[in-house]
């Protein structure tokens, strides 16, 4: 029984001191640009094909789901959240992965990660990371083929359209530094090249710097939370420092971790997704730090090349519990 005798709220004359959700989402995509630029410069413009495929799939899936539910589709499509999900996925899959990889991943992300829970604001997990991890555990080979070097145009299209089964570019399958790190640790080898400089050999360093730049811009404009990236990067650096200090030969320096893999993309664009993150101020500190620790643990000892997606999902599922136990002391209450 809800009393309906309250006068309706008046939003027409009220103050607005805020950036609307839509603008936030558009700004997030804009902030991604520096990183995308670096990615294009380093690996060719093919990443844009992946982003485009993801965007089309995401919008179609979102619209279909909303229409099936009998909800107005247009406002939800316009809020830009599906686009952000699509871009994050497009940037995470290898740029020459066959088309069905990104399509399938986006479908998982939008439908299973988001719409099943009721759409924007209701999803407990970051949709893009749901899609990404499902892809990663289902198609590990396609999801770890990061091509290096120049690839002829026809080879690119054959790879994307026909899939990697029929054709593999020659220049693929060079191990990423993160792969090398893990293999090295298990082989008990020393890692002469595992320092921050090695990140720039394959371009990961530039890409990470690109995302760092865009992310800082977001944080400065207060469109992304600052606590999560700070505690995430802080925890990652701290862990890396401790282990590097203990055994520099086997554990690379913090710079290596900060500049490799999806560290920065995760810090500023994935972990900061407010819907699936912890929502209390203290909770966000813990949330970010948790991701940092898990990224380090999974990268160093785990079975997957990068831990960002898993770390984010693992902290996503802890977020409600974190919120529950980190509620701030309300005014006039003694704890």
């Amino acid at each position, binding site marked *: *029984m809800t*009393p309906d*005798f*309250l006068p309706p709220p008046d939003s027409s004359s009220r103050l607005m001191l805020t950036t609307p959700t839509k603008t936030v989402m558009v700004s997030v995509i804009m902030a991604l640009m520096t990183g995308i630029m670096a990615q294009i410069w380093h690996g060719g413009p093919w990443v844009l094909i992946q982003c485009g495929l993801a965007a089309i799939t995401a919008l179609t899936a979102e619209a279909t789901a909303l229409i099936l539910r009998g909800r107005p589709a247009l406002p939800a499509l316009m809020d830009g959240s599906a686009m952000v999900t699509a871009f994050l996925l497009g940037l995470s899959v290898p740029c020459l992965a066959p088309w069905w990889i990104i399509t399938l991943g986006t479908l998982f992300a939008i439908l299973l990660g988001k719409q099943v829970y009721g759409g924007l604001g209701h999803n407990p997990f970051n949709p893009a990371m749901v899609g990404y991890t499902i892809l990663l555990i289902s198609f590990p080979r396609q999801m770890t083929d990061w091509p290096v070097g120049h690839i002829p145009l026809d080879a690119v299209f054959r790879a994307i359209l026909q899939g990697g089964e029929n054709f593999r570019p020659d220049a693929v399958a060079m191990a990423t530094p993160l792969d090398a790190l893990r293999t090295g640790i298990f082989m008990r080898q020393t890692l002469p090249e595992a320092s921050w400089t090695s990140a720039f050999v394959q371009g990961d360093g530039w890409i990470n710097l690109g995302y760092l730049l865009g992310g800082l811009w977001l944080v400065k404009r207060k469109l992304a939370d600052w606590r999560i990236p700070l505690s995430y990067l802080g925890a990652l650096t701290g862990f890396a420092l401790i282990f590097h200090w203990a055994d520099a030969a086997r554990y690379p320096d913090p710079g290596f971790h900060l500049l490799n893999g999806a560290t920065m993309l995760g810090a500023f664009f994935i972990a900061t997704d407010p819907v699936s993150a912890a929502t209390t101020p203290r909770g966000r500190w813990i949330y970010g730090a948790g991701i940092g620790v898990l990224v380090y643990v999974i990268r160093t000892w785990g079975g997957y090349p990068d831990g960002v997606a898993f770390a984010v999902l693992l902290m996503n599922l802890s977020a409600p519990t974190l919120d529950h136990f980190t509620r701030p002391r309300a005014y006039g209450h003694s704890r």
Partner: protein
Amino acid sequence: MLAILVLSLLFASFGWLLGLSSKHLAVQGDPLPNKIDALLPQTQCGQCGYPGCRPYAEAIARGEADIDQCPPGGDACVQALAELLGREAKSVNPAFGTEKPPAVAFIDEPRCIGCALCLPACPVDAILGAPKFMHTVIASECTGCELCLPACPVDCIDMKPLAAQPDPWRAS
């Protein structure tokens, strides 16, 4: 053979230990019916099939009755019960009735013949009257259970919606 013998002995001693501990840890009283009762609307209407809210609460506590049998409490009451008992929330079973806005009984005095039949029907003694005298319902005591309606031979009792608007001025 030996194994089975030893094990049987062992199990027997387990049983004996459990018996001892159950005596030691016996529970007196059960606060659960009280907690359930506290969530029920106390209309005492009997729509749940039990003679009052308390018996229904006891039935729920014993596991005999489901939590969706209280139409006056409505879905909110079912949800509260589900929360207390950790069960799945559902809506009120329509077999027991439907939720209505709160109401109180009102006796149309010109039609009342003073038969006093409604007096014992009222579960909260909210009807004032005596044989051959006019009856009236004390509105502040009436729970709106409607049990007096069938008792009245001349149908002089009507249910009037209760203006239960919460006082908004108290909120701020």
